[in-house]
């Protein structure tokens, strides 16, 4: 197990390397330079060149990359082209907002999706099942930017009970979290329903019944444990996805998070910020995946054995 974990942690190194190269190259290939973006269309070519030279953008790509990575490995992620501040100093204060929104969104999608999925599976074929499955299908199909705007229209403008913009109180988080959590909960509910129904057809359920176990015991002791394995993996992956996906919610509700920082930096060709944020997100993603594997190993003896042997 320890060996497996060490191997997994070592794998993070080449992965982060690949992510950094890809991000660096893609940003350099896109048209425009930081000087153009920062100084606007009225700037002269000399002014632009001088700006690019001052931030070191006029050097060849490999040189810039090596320079950047040398700094990054020592914990220095460079200075923003446009904000005259350390990338770390700009990004770190923004991360808690993004993390909070993503974490709450996953929490609520699980708290909402799992019970609904279980209920639908237990009441398969009844009005409860058809009703919840239909509602889940609708929510899973709604694009989140539209859902965000509709929620804002209803709760901020019509009813006036929740703020539409900004940050500060818990009320500011309700709409962004709902925007991300509702489609995710719908997806979780559908998945839980399917895995539960699948587990119900397994032979071990019949064995438990023949043993004299009650239907409740079969559901909550025998079936849920097996049905939750794929669901947990999925929740972890959607948490990682929501970290990046928060861009939309942060943009719609004017939250000063990672997402809006990345978006602004891309527009400004502010390579150090985009790179810093991308590396940080991909690193977080890999840590989440690692934790997921641990949880999975805890729940699933077969998986535990397979990594022990490997």
């Amino acid at each position, binding site marked *: 197990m320890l060996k497996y974990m060490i191997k997994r942690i070592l794998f993070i190194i080449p992965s982060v390397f690949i992510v950094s190269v890809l991000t660096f190259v893609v940003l350099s290939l896109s048209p425009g330079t930081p000087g153009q973006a920062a100084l606007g269309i009225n700037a002269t070519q000399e002014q632009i060149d001088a700006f690019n030279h001052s931030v070191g953008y006029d050097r060849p790509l490999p040189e810039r990359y090596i320079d950047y990575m040398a700094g990054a490995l020592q914990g220095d992620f460079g200075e923003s082209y446009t904000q005259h501040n350390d990338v770390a100093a700009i990004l770190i204060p923004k991360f808690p907002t993004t993390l909070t929104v993503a974490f709450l969104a996953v929490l609520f999608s699980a708290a909402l999706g799992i019970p609904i999925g279980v209920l639908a599976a237990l009441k398969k074929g009844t009005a409860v099942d058809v009703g919840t499955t239909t509602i889940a299908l609708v929510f899973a199909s709604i694009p989140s930017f539209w859902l965000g705007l509709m929620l804002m229209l209803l709760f901020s403008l019509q009813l006036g009970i929740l703020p539409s913009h900004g940050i500060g109180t818990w009320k500011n988080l309700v709409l962004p979290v709902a925007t991300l959590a509702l489609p995710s909960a719908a997806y979780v509910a559908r998945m839980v329903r399917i895995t539960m129904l699948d587990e119900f057809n*397994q*032979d071990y359920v019949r064995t438990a*019944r023949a043993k*004299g176990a*009650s239907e409740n015991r079969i559901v909550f002791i025998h079936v849920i444990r097996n049905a939750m394995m794929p669901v947990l993996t999925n929740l972890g992956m959607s948490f990682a996805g929501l970290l990046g996906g928060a861009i939309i919610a942060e943009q719609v509700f004017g939250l000063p998070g990672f997402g809006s920082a990345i978006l602004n930096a891309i527009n400004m060709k502010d390579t150090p910020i985009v790179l810093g944020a991308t590396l940080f997100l991909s690193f977080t993603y890999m840590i989440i995946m690692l934790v997921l594997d641990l949880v999975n190993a805890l729940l699933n*003896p077969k998986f535990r054995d397979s990594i022990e042997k490997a």
Partner: protein
Amino acid sequence: MADENLLVIDGLRDVLKLKNGEAAYPVDGVSFTVPRSKTVGLVGESGCGKSMTARTVMRILDKGISVAEGHITFDGEDLLALPEPQMRDIRGNRIAMIFQEPMTALNPSISVGKQVREAILLHEKVSRAEAKERVIQMFREVGIPEADRRYKSYPHQLSGGLRQRICIAMGMICNPDLLIADEPTTALDVTVEAQILELMKRLQRESGMSILIITHNLGVVADICDEVNVMYAGQIVEHATKAEIFNRPLHPYTIGLMDAIPRVNGDMEHDLHTIPGTVPALGNFPEGCRFCTRCPFADERCRTQAPALEDAGDGHLVRCFKPQEVR
């Protein structure tokens, strides 16, 4: 109250509601008994209704299937009339069941020891530690090596034979009066099969329980049974003691099954005998005798009238118009 028969099934008829609103009867008027401390075989091809008959006794039928007629009496009690909580007290406690697929019959994410222990904790008021001791003791009894260590094993870590021993331990742990074994050895190697049958016989000698064994294998019948019921298309077509059925098989279907057993000293010139055709589909049984489409002796009467299960002497029952002509 000491009835000679532990289990009496009388005129049992299971109904399956089909999608088109029609009803089919996968178990159609089955009657037989299981005497105390005896082993009774229920024999037939796949789909003849033998497993469903057993599951009806346990009342663990799939959704959509229910009992239309008949009675099941267990130790003087009408099982079909029992409320579900009382039935749960009987399941796994006084009537235990083991299944064909030891590979999938156990929960993959709970240790085998805990799964067997659950049966005790469901039915008896004992401490967990005490229950665990009993499980380990039962593991030893059913021939599981290193029983202490195996308690913590998960199903995927064990061989098929060991898993079936675990299932048998689970069935035996509450000292049942009746053990229903649904093809317990079908998924196992022949050598393991012999060991498992031997184990069941030994446990029966020691505990005095009755066994209802479901199988398509007459070799298993010859090994373990006292009495045999042959089922075809939802009905019993022949019933006799083991000696009777092997010495004087009367129904053409039973004879077909026997000819289908490979013999070491048999006639090597000829191919293995098979019964032509397959079991007719549910709800699509022929008029008259249900076996008439596959029977080499069928005539006009067989195709139009349904024969009844009749005594051919000494309690040997057969559902056939011309059992004497056979052979």
